[in-house]
């Protein structure tokens, strides 16, 4: 692959907006980002947001406490629909996490320089989303105190987990994903933690960042090792982007329930995951960028790019829906019944809402003017997030509630505790985001610095290579 020079990239991307606004230098970038964290005064808006989300965390803890003491019967799950909000939310959160990994790993390997201003926040989002996602499989089981039996560990019972079960694969996939994402994120943070250590004035703060920076001094050897590790981790993460949601989709595809038993699920789930992930990145970054005045660093260029990724993945997802319907018709019998029932049965509203949210409305993104209108883009990102949640609802609930024997058909209705659990995790997720914004540089300082013209001056005589 030929090296993509900044000039070439400019021509490729239509020379629209720069990835960093003109007029910045190393110092302004560093201070701009580091000061958000190191500022003594906590912005009032942050306090309000953190307080609200903290209350949601308390609601979540209360729900979890009640759940563990009483049983999953506090939710609306029943016998034809034994999985509902629990697994919907799990898949939704896992999917959201995918954007972070895609941005940091795959776009790194593809040398997309626009990733640098958003990868940190996106990776943090990934971690928090995985944390939220992880709660559900853990707590949705009937006896959560025994959930560790899903791990293969040596025990006196001489029992292994059952390796044929997709849930087992899930355990590996999600735990690997969580671990690699954490390592990747933390590794990427180290140079910036050192910057924070150097910028901080308070000795205690200095100490803490110093410990976290693990002795980073920015020597050439450090940088060399850093770049190597980072590339290796990016290489490890890249297949994970594809594999995790593929395996999550196996939970459904391996079973025999019409609507689940579908070979198209792995690619369609991965595309959906990226789709929802980018939507969530937009949902988070548009207000943050506005609130902290980061328009210089997270520019319209980023917004454009993310909107375009959404548009592309959204079309893949649309193709998935179409194929599902086609295969349903082609297979006839139970599959076709399921498809018709999805589109015309009692949960048809969910299906058509899903089509509206995931296929129809995102087509607005074809328009440049809409991509540049932050309010509309934000609203569309919310719509896509809702649509992707509905997609999981449609897949899980509308497949289970009417399967093979009409005698055992039933309906599903969520209860109060389904909602407190779901919104509780949203609160938990946002609360972690608030903490992250306040305590860590939400944009990679050292990577953004490489985007500056300053960074390129010295390399010019030798011929341009981005960063090696």
């Amino acid at each position: 692959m030929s090296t993509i020079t900044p000039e070439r990239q400019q021509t490729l991307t239509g020379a629209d907006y720069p990835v960093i606004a003109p007029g910045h230098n190393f110092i302004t970038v560093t201070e701009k980002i580091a000061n958000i964290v190191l500022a003594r005064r906590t912005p009032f808006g942050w306090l309000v947001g953190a307080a609200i989300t903290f209350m949601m965390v308390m609601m979540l803890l209360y729900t979890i406490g009640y759940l563990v003491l009483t049983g999953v019967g506090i939710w609306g799950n029943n016998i034809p629909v034994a999985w509902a909000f629990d697994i919907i939310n799990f898949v939704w959160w896992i999917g959201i996490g995918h954007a972070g990994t895609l941005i940091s790993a795959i776009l790194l390997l593809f040398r997309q320089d626009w990733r640098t201003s958003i990868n940190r926040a996106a990776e943090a989002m990934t971690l928090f989303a995985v944390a939220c996602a992880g709660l559900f499989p853990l707590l949705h089981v009937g006896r959560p105190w025994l959930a560790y039996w899903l791990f293969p560990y040596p025990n006196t019972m001489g029992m292994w987990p059952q390796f044929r079960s997709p849930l087992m694969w899930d355990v590996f996939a999600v735990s690997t994903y969580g671990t690699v994402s954490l390592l990747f994120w933390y590794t990427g943070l180290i140079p910036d933690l050192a910057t924070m250590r150097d910028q901080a004035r308070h000795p205690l703060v200095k100490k803490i960042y110093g410990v976290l920076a693990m002795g980073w001094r920015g020597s050439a050897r450090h940088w060399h090792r850093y770049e190597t590790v980072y590339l290796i981790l990016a290489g490890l993460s890249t297949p994970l982007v594809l594999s995790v949601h593929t395996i999550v989709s196996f939970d459904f595809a391996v079973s025999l329930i019409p609507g689940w038993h579908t070979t198209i699920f792995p690619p369609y789930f991965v595309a959906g995951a990226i789709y929802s992930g980018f939507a969530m990145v937009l949902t988070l970054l548009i207000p943050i960028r506005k609130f902290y005045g980061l328009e210089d660093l997270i520019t319209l260029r980023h917004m454009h790019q993310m909107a375009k990724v959404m548009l592309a993945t959204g079309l893949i997802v649309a193709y998935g829906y179409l194929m599902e319907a086609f295969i349903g018709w082609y297979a006839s019998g139970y599959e076709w019944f399921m498809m018709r029932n999805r589109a015309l049965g009692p949960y048809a509203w969910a299906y058509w809402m899903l089509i509206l949210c995931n296929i129809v409305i995102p087509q607005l993104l074809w328009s440049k003017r809409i991509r540049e209108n932050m309010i509309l883009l934000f609203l569309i990102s919310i719509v896509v997030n809702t649509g992707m949640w509905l997609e999981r609802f449609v897949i899980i609930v509308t497949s289970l509630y009417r399967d093979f024997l009409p005698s055992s058909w039933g309906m599903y209705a969520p209860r109060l505790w389904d909602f407190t659990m779901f919104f509780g995790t949203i609160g938990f997720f946002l609360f972690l985001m608030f903490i992250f914004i306040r305590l860590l540089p939400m944009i990679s300082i050292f990577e953004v610095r490489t985007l500056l013209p300053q960074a390129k001056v010295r390399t010019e005589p030798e011929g341009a290579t981005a960063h090696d």
Partner: protein
Amino acid sequence: MAREATPQELVQIRPRLSTLLHKAQQEQGRRFWRSLEELCETPEFIEYLQREFPHGASEWHDPVGRRRFLKLMGASLALAGLSGCVYQPQEKIVPYIRQPEEIVPGKPLFFATAMPFAGEAIGLLVRSNEGRPTKIEGNPQHPGSLGATDLWAQASILQLYDPDRSRTLLYLGDISSWSAFLGAVRTAMVNQGGKQGAGLRLLTETVISPTLADQIKALLQKYPAAKWHQYEPVTRDNVRLGAQMAFGQPVNAIYRFDQAARVVALDADFLFRGPGHLRYARDFANRRRVVADQKDMNRLYVAESSPTVTGSIADHRLPVKPSEIEALARAIAAGVGVGNVAAPTGEALAKYGSWIDAVVRDLDQHRGASIVVVGDEQPPVVHALGHAINAALGNVGRTVFYTDPVEANPVVQTESLRELVADMEAGRVEMLVILGGNPVYTAPADIPFRTALERVPLRIHLGLYRDETADLCHWHVPEAHYLESWSDARAYDGTVSIVQPLIAPLYQGKTAHEILAVLNDQPDRTSYDVVREYWQRQAGAADFERWWRRALHDGVVPDTAFTARTLSARTDFAAAPPTSTSAQGLEIVFRPDPSIYDGRFANLGWLQELPKPLTKLTWDNVIYLSPRTAERLGLDRVVGSRGGEVWSEIVELRFEGRTVRGPAYLVPGHPDDCVTVFMGYGRERAGRVGNKIGYNASAIRTTGAMWAGAGAELRRTGEAYQLASTQLHFLMEGRDLVRATILEEYMRNPEVVHERGHEPPEDLSLYPQYQYDGYRWAMAIDVSACIGCNACVVACQAENNIPVVGKEQVARSREMHWLRVDTYYEGDPENPTAYFQPIPCQQCEKAPCEVVCPVNATVHSAEGLNDMVYNRCVGTRYCSNNCPYKVRRFNYLLYQDWETPTYKMMRNPEVTIRSRGVMEKCTYCVQRIQAAKIEAEKDGRRVRDGEVLTACQAVCPTEAIVFGDLNDPNSRVAKLKAEKRNFSLLGELNTRPRTSYLAALRNPNPELKGA
């Protein structure tokens, strides 16, 4: 030192204690018992037992008294602790067949007894684990059971252990003692003695116990002016009156369905309830089972005014209004040539003309091999017509037999009750003894029993519960459950069974025999003495002990079945003009509830939660309407399933000036312009489970319309009401779930069953085939034989310790039944064909549940069972999602009652009590398989065919469920699976279920195609 207690003293001690005492006296040489006995025998202790807690509490103020109180308290606690393991009745009871040398802990014993209920006794074998009865099975030697039981017998074990049963003797609502009661009765009886008992009245339910009848006879001899009344709400008055009409005397009709090729049921649910129903269902099904060596089927015509299970399996079912049945019977009678009967004319019957003609022709071709059976609820004239038709067809002596009545004293019970109430109102009753029953709740609305009762100066009630009647009586004596009692009872054919107790009364219960002994001034006589003495008189003294042991052991008293009598039916009654009906408004039909009967079982959660046949509703009684009538009333859009919930509208039903409010419900196949209401609900004092649910049909039931009436009005109220149903869809959606065909078609082409099915080849799997070297357990269920009676569902619940979850959880689709009976309708909603399909776990060979469990909690056994390992289950519920049959049940909450002590005694110790968060499902009764295998291994042989009966199989009256070893080619199950009718449910999914079904066969009359 230890003085022998006199019998009088013994009687005064709580029975539990006396049991202990007796036991202790017999068990010589155990010092521990001795010392307790010493304690028990001190006069202070006896006094303490009779006194009440408040008295004891008062002793706190007296230092000496307090010390004694504490001492005694300690002793009584010690007793309570001990008595938990030794609730053995004091008299000798004789174990059935499998009698170990001694009681081996962990090894159940079986005792024969009988359940007297609804005018007949059902012979039972009751399993006893360490002295606790835990499961009821039918007695194969009993003619009314043949090994089967019905749902009520199954659930009666729960009634025994019901914690809401009345526990103490009450006087004016306060706890009192037996001695106080004896004193009161003695005074009253002395008083009555002076006037020949003119003020004494006895009110019982239908008495089928020869001993009790004998006791009552003795009482009436002593007090000739006293009167004995009988009443129960599901009364068979019309049967008695019909017999009177036809024969001039009360007789008992016995049908031999095994001899009948054609059966016409006139609103008779003879397969589901009524004397002999279990036997009839067995005989009927045997004439219907098309297998290798039987190619013909009987044919059942049913005309009915409310959909029943019998009607659902009929070859031809005709929904008719109750008022039309008499005309229908007359038309058939005229058709088959009963004298004095003219075929009724009129347009009403014109629409049934072809049906009647076909039935008449068919009956005519099967003279002597047909039965016309009339429902107990039908007016007397229809019964008389039924007798006349059977006589005209030459069935009497071939398929229909007449004997003496089973009841000891057949009376017209509504008249009897009316007479009693008249006496009470006139102040002629000074002392009323109510032995069983709950007349305050069940009396017809036009008999003011409640108000009249309050005028009686001394009211005594013996009952299992402190119910509506107990509350209005001065004295309430807790009744001993039949599993705690000595008694006797007659089966539908007169065969007597001795009722022997499995356990000493849990709550100081007394039997009717004991109360009568008290009335007869023999207060020291136990029911054992009474029953044994009676039979000693009957059997003669020679070697009575042997005779007695034999009778107890077998569960039937030899040679007590009535002999058939030759009677000729008169037909002069038919000359009377047909009863005219003014068809104003809706007609109303009263029926006992198919689960809780007349309300006596209202407090049994198993029955409340049992999905009622056809509607699958639980925890409520509803008002049945036909879809067309509902449409006319504008109810069709508001009643039915909305989303996952079943909603209905409360309607006000007005009948003869009285109203009830209940939820309306649409039932396909219900006759138009007619409603059915069900008794048994609307109880005020049933207990914690049964209180205040449903409406009370007795409130609008009158003596003039005990079973049906005309002129009801229905008014909408617009009030929505939620019902809990376990099945929301009753159509097969074009899927091949219950395969059904007609006999003619099947005989022409047996492959017709498999025409639409597609079963993949056996080796079509990624996973290797299992090898089954030992046993290969399998089940075959004959859909053709299943009558949907629900007995299997309750049996499964009893055997496998399945919890009850309550209405709210059922409405949320979380019922726990391991076995369910699916109902599907086919055809015209006016009169659809219904199929019942029991669905236990299919025990797939390629089980979808096994591969998806992440923790190996559901695994394949070497014998092909899908074993569920409860302690390994973490509860991901993936197995349930992946089960195409949705037979898995999840403990979403802690459904099992871990606290109630009596329930702990009830549970089957062989089956784990599941906690919350655990998946469970049918195991093919693996505990029974293991027990049989252990026995077989001890003898060094294989388990014999029929040695393992699953709970559902054992209870099934029609033997629709057959279980066995497929590796034995001669087993019944292997033979059934070789039948062409055999098919796998959802076999196209390649799950290879071990449970398979035999296609439903109907035998319609070719003349009535499409009817």
